[in-house]
């Protein structure tokens, strides 16, 4: 009987711990992808920046 209860105890703890870890991994991946997309958009804007504004002719 005690063995059965110990098995149940570990089953509950294992289920909770694995569930929380799995959720953390899923959320971490989502967050990482999000930053990657934002970072890429930022770079894209940087490369499309118009250099004409810094042209010396604009200041004449």
């Amino acid at each position: 009987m005690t063995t059965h209860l110990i098995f149940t105890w570990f089953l509950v703890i294992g289920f909770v711990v694995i569930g929380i870890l799995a959720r953390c991994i899923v959320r971490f991946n989502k967050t990482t992808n999000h930053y990657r997309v934002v970072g890429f958009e930022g770079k894209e804007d940087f490369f499309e920046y118009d250099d004409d504004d810094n042209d010396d002719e604009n200041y004449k």
Partner: protein
Amino acid sequence: MRITSDTECAALTHDLLKGKCRFIANYAAALLGCGATCIRIEKNVKRIAETFGVHVDMTLLPSHVIAVVWDMDYTHSYNCQSKPIGGAIDFSRNIALSKLSWQIAEDKLNYVDAAGKFEQILLKPRLNKWLVLTLTSIANASFCRLFGGDFNAVGIVLFATLLGFLVKQVMLEDKIDVRITTVASAFVASVIGASGYLFGISGTPELALGTSVLFLVPGIPYINSGSDLFAGHYLCSMSRFIQAVILTICLSLGLCGGMLLMQMKFF
């Protein structure tokens, strides 16, 4: 700018009252949302209204705040209704909002400046969740020691609270109903709390089991309910009391579930 007609004057008064009323209603709603008692909300709002030079008639309901703001002559009024902002008890926000009311009164802030500071308070992040988790676990384990539990029982309670509270945090983050969350959290905490009986590692296993779910007791709603009852806010008082009773029932269900699973006798 020169005011040329009575219509423009009335429009100006209306805009002023509107801004003040919206600020006061939102301020009261934020206080209600972060777990302030009704008497505190009334005192703070009265302080602000006196500084703004208006009269306020306010109705505090469990899920709404209705504010009617009058000018000093009782000739113009504006009515505003607001839902509680936040939804979780947050004492640091409660303190910051109370300080804001004093700052408005002492520095004679107008409602535009006050609204700016109010927004800053609302944007301030809550206390770090890992710190809350650690402190709650230590506090609950200390309860076990205070009630006479041995150090093994304290360790069991620490672990039970750590995992039980983590389950609560995770489920609430995922917008799962607070009652289901409480049942699940109490269940996990009680199963771990029963390990003193299961493994025979503690001389006081009953204390470990009993104190493992104490972190879920809705103490603040019970205290606020009593405070509102004495202040005459019976609707809010009953609402908070019923909310606390429901959470206590959920806690008991989770505890009973854990004890049944571990085949423990109730009496």
